[in-house]
């Protein structure tokens, strides 16, 4: 058999395999609508940043209602966890009291007023008052990775058990069990505590969903392709209008992509690729991400080749303005402290 005839056969088979041309023409139209919508969304986002104070009051009938921003919110300290589990302050005014270590897969967040840090260490979850240094135990970790989520004032926790989410009141111990029909992980409370975001696996594909805690209504925001997964679970923006996450896309052995993306939480969710964080062999790496308190930037860790962690960088919420923040071997969790000006 000659090269020419083998090529001809290959072309014929490939061309013949394209039987669903009309279906793909429909796909093409949808792609165009998506892109048009994305451009419009980018333009709206620019306007929204300017008018952020008005935007947080917008009415969203079927999605979680965000809590209003505290006045004069500005960014304070940024904390990250190294691959050895050490809590490191990478920028901002120096905090006098910090935990020494924290679990990089457990809760790690500032409370809404920025006065305390919720973190996991020693098999339990703690609330550290950053001014006095008082450390209170909130509860035990359910597992070694401490996969429990605490809301922004550490008054409630959420835990995925089998096909249920168990929401608990920290002070009273009262629990509510909500069926979600699939195993969940990476739970994250929305600002205002109205909703939870989490990752499920339905039909063999990883899915990012939200659950409105009042109506029990679930919304599917993102569904990945088979084989792809969420390297980093959902992180709500301070206004609750967007969720950031990191997708591990492509083969697991070589040249997979770590993609930093956001999705809107409105009725018609729209995803945006902000940046390809890395093209690497990095199956086990979970970048830490955190929103700045004013919602204009995202901080993220990167994996350095040959290391289990990497430096911290940040970028604007539209994917531009990439800049390095701190060198180190960070992984898993990043927390960005809200500060409230006292004069107002």
């Amino acid at each position, binding site marked *: 058999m*000659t090269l020419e005839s083998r*090529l001809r056969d*290959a072309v014929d088979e*490939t*061309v013949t395999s394209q039987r669903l041309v*009309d279906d793909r023409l429909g796909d093409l139209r949808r792609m*165009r609508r998506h892109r048009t919508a994305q451009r419009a969304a980018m333009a709206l986002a620019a306007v929204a940043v300017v008018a952020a104070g008005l935007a947080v009051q917008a009415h969203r009938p079927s999605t979680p209602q965000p809590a209003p921003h505290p006045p004069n919110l500005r960014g304070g300290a940024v904390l990250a966890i190294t691959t050895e589990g050490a809590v490191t302050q990478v920028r901002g005014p120096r905090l006098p009291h910090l935990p020494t270590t924290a679990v990089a897969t457990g809760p790690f967040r500032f409370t809404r007023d920025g006065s305390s840090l919720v973190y996991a260490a020693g098999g339990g979850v703690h609330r550290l008052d950053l001014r006095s240094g008082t450390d209170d135990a909130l509860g035990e970790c359910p597992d070694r990775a401490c996969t429990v989520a605490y809301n922004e004032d550490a008054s409630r926790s959420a835990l995925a058990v089998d096909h249920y989410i168990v929401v608990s009141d920290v002070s009273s111990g009262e629990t509510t069990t909500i069926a979600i029909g699939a195993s969940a992980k990476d739970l994250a409370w929305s600002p205002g505590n109205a909703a939870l975001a989490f990752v499920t696996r339905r039909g063999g594909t990883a899915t990012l969903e939200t659950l409105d805690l009042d109506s029990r209504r679930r919304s599917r925001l993102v569904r990945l392709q088979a084989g792809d997964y969420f390297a980093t679970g959902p992180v709500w923006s301070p206004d609750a209008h967007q969720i950031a996450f990191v997708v591990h896309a492509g083969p697991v052995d070589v040249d997979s992509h770590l993609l930093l993306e956001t999705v809107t939480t409105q009725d018609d969710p*729209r*995803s945006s690729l902000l940046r*390809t964080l890395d093209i690497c062999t990095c199956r086990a790496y979970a970048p830490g991400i955190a929103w700045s308190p004013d919602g204009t930037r995202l901080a993220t860790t990167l994996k350095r080749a040959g290391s289990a962690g990497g430096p911290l960088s940040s970028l604007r919420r539209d994917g531009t303005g990439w800049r390095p923040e701190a060198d180190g071997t960070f992984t898993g969790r990043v927390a960005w402290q809200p500060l409230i000006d006292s004069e107002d």
Partner: protein
Amino acid sequence: MDRIGAEATGLDRASTAPPPFDDFYRAELPRLVALARGLCPPHLAEDLAQEAMLVAYRRWRTVAALERPDLWVRRVCANLAVSSFRRRMVEIRGLARLAGRREPELLSDDTEAIWAACRSLPKRQAQAMALRAVYDLPIADIAAVLDCSDGTVKQHLSRARASLRTTLHLEDEGDVS
């Protein structure tokens, strides 16, 4: 202005509506996917062909007015496949996911082996070879798509054939240009 980019002049084209994009799409897509198969991994080929078609769709009035819109979209596809590859692919995959991506069609081992060998060629050789194999284009048209001279295309094809024969363990039946 090259053979692809020369826009039709006069009232006959400018004053009439462009031909339907749907017809162009149905005629071009199957071979465009085959072209992409020869230039990028199978799981990306259909998305890549879609991406090239999307570019044509968005600019259809302008593209339809070209002398050879078919060559134009093949150039877009061939260039997309080899330039800024990874970054572009990621974006394409992400957008395709939003639009409801389909799994690529499974092909026979022989066909996959041919396309894999083609993809392993140097970029320009792979482009020339894929265009020749998929469309049976004359040298001049391949040169127009790749924006190079006829002599360069002949050289690329000759080297590509030699490499493919070696890779696929085929006998030398003499060059056909």
